[in-house]
């Protein structure tokens, strides 16, 4: 398995006659920050769901930290120390911010350390002032931060984020860039994202998806300058 913490081999996902992910070989090293980009329908979110256990691949293998997780359920993947953020903020609207973050901290922390971990995670995502607010009453950006706070409270070594910048204002995206950079100091991070400015702000290696396959992998500037990427995004070569 070399030094890869996430690896897929020939990963394929079909829905009826449509092949959303087509024979993808992917590899992520420890503490690496990787962005997955591609136009709508490129298969990146389906690929993300296959890694997290939300979808079971039609064929191929998924390996996380030496475990073959191809047929695992999301809770089993999460128990390996993987923090997962879905495309639409998946939070508990009827609970307070503190209760949301407690839920994440409780599973991985001894009872006497939960309160301090909750406080630390809320502080890091600047949601401490909202601790007693109902999550359902918060703005989209605040809900995104609550979800990230939950992920941090579970102290993951691998963080998988599906379109974390979706629906955020420019200021919120700038803050998110800082948060992701901060998270990547302690954990490997995979981000599925559309927003190229956001991707530039966090740099790292970029994997480009097109028609269910990996088109190329390189540094962000090289990817942006590549005519093949322009073609799949814009439908023309320059």
């Amino acid at each position, binding site marked *: 398995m070399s030094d890869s913490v996430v690896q897929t081999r020939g990963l394929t996902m079909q829905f009826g006659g449509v092949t959303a992910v087509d024979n993808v070989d992917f590899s992520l090293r420890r503490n690496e920050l990787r962005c997955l980009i591609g136009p709508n329908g490129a298969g990146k979110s389906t690929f993300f769901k296959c890694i997290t256990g939300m979808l079971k691949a039609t064929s191929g293998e998924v390996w996380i930290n030496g475990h073959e997780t191809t047929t695992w359920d999301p809770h089993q993947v999460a128990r390996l120390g993987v923090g997962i953020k879905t495309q639409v903020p998946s939070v508990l609207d009827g609970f*307070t911010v503190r209760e949301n973050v407690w839920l994440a901290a409780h599973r991985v922390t001894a009872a006497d350390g939960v309160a301090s971990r909750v406080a630390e995670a809320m502080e890091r995502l600047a949601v401490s002032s909202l601790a007693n607010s109902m999550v359902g009453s918060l703005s989209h950006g605040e809900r995104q931060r609550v979800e990230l706070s939950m992920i941090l409270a579970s102290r993951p070594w691998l963080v998988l984020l599906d379109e974390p910048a979706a629906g955020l204002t420019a200021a919120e995206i700038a803050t998110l860039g800082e948060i992701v950079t901060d998270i990547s100091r302690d954990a490997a991070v995979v981000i599925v994202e559309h927003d190229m400015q956001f991707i530039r702000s966090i740099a790292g290696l970029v994997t480009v998806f097109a028609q269910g396959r990996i088109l190329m992998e390189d540094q962000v500037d090289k990817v942006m300058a590549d005519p093949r990427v322009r073609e799949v995004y814009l439908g023309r070569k320059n």
Partner: protein
Amino acid sequence: MRGEMRHALLVAIVAAIVLAVAPALIGTYTLTLLVIYGMLALSLGLIWGFGGILCFGQAAFFGLGAYTYAIAAINIGESTVPFLLGIAIPFLFAAALGAMMFYGRLSDVYLGVITLVVTLLFFRFMNSTAGPEYVVGTARLGGFNGIPGFQTLNVPGDPSAYIFGDAYYYLTAVALLIVYLLVRWLLASPFGRIAMAIRENELRVELLGYDARARKTLLFSIGGAIAGLAGTLYASWAEIVTPGMFSLGQSAEIIIWCIVGGLGTLVGPVIGAMILAYLKFALGQQSVIDNTLVLGAILILCVLLMPRGVVPTLGSALRRSYRRPQTDGTRRRPGASPAERAHV
């Protein structure tokens, strides 16, 4: 958690006072049945109101508990072991049924249909057991006529010391209070909080590493055990068990009790059950109007005017009356968080 249990104790003390003075107004024979129905409603209130599991077949565990007790009491004689079996068998049956449903990823309406079908299967089967070949040990199942003439509850170890009349009422009342406190403790514990979180957003809870299927199965089984306990107490009160315990009408009534009383609380379903069951009893003594029409009208009015149920609506009104101005700048929705709602 300590604060929540203090609150639970306060509710239990108030309930104990009400239950202690109630015999001055209503006979203990009728009150006993109301308390048993309250416990049955509480079992559904727990799994539906806090676990989000809409079980149309809570009557199955109620009937199973009663039949288990009756069959075991005929075979064993002394009531202690039958009493425990009346709780254990519904727990195990609910565990097996729950595991099949939750590990099969069934939810919502499918879950409701399956639990209803299981209940009706029991109903059909028990109705067809009139022949002498349907016998468990020395207990004949009796078909439509059910099983009469078994040993009712006695003081543990002394089969001749029956518990009946007023003593039986106080026993069921204490049992209800104990079950209430245990359920409140469960809901205040991490298990209960996670169960409520699963009801809110199962995917998020799974993405945090919790096995929602196992937790839902356990919660469902606990609900089955409480319904089984109610069935056991009912069997000893009625001194007969019949297939009617598994009927569609019985299943529907439990759901109506919860809706009228108020989901998301424990006291709500208990109060809903006691009021509606008493109303049904009182209306049954006259012949001017059919009692199901009146109960149906109450359900419709309640759904239209108090969609959250009687207890949560009254609770919100009381909170509004006594609420202090909010000064910490936090934003709250009307109502309370699940953990706060669990206080009642």
